[in-house]
């Protein structure tokens, strides 16, 4: 299974690693980081930039070592535009689109998308669940016109870390 971690999850991992209070959400986020391997957990380029260029503690490097960067592909922006039309905020639309249209290398990427987007944004999760049937239809319609592997694109699930770790 492959999961894209939202920054709301990454920041909780970091808070736990630097000695912050181990609240339930911090514990669940750390458990996720420790349960899965780096080829199962992904972060966006934006999160990578925050961890490498803005945050200066070594624990940020630990998170980078435990994850893989997910790169956008040529259809990421197009699907993000569709998601914005359906009421998702700019950043949420981009990350949900990245979960569908992305790969693990700049050239000859070996994967297409991830199984799940992991977040603590409950508003986003509820909005996604409410629109899921319509999103499925729109994505199927768009993907049908694309060449392989993009015609096999699929919607991710949207879960919190505890929903993921409790099912493993």
């Amino acid at each position: 299974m492959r999961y894209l971690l939202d920054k709301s999850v990454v920041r909780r991992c970091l808070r736990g690693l630097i000695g912050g209070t181990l609240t339930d959400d911090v514990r669940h986020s750390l458990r996720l980081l420790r349960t899965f391997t780096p080829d199962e957990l992904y972060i966006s380029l934006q999160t990578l930039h925050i961890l490498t260029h803005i945050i200066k503690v070594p624990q940020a490097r630990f998170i980078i070592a435990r994850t893989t960067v997910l790169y956008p592909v040529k259809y990421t922006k197009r699907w993000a535009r569709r998601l914005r039309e359906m009421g998702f905020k700019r950043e949420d639309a981009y990350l949900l689109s990245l979960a569908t249209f992305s790969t693990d290398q700049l050239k000859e990427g070996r994967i297409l998308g991830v199984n799940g987007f992991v977040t603590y944004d409950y508003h986003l999760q509820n909005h996604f669940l409410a629109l899921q049937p319509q999103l499925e239809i729109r994505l199927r319609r768009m993907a049908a016109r694309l060449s392989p592997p993009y015609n096999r694109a699929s919607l991710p699930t949207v879960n919190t870390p505890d929903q993921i770790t409790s099912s493993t």
Partner: protein
Amino acid sequence: MPTTMTIRLDAEIQEALRHKSRQLHLDAETAVVQLIRDFVKGRLLLADQEFTEKLTVAEYLALSDEQEAALWDRWYREADRRVGTIIAEASPDALPPR
């Protein structure tokens, strides 16, 4: 009941430890014991260590969840501008999620 543990340190580090402890108005043993206490509790950093250019670890940890989230939102927008447009290419036989 406290027991004794011997730690070998280079002379240079010992001198630096004494110097730093004097600066902090602590004796060296108290400083090391405090560091060990923090370490076993999972606190691996000194509170005044730089977290970002403008925040120490202690200041960051003192933020409320809302303040921390707002900071990450700002960092995300900055990162988004810096990352620019990168487009990767998936192999035709790239694996979709199972």
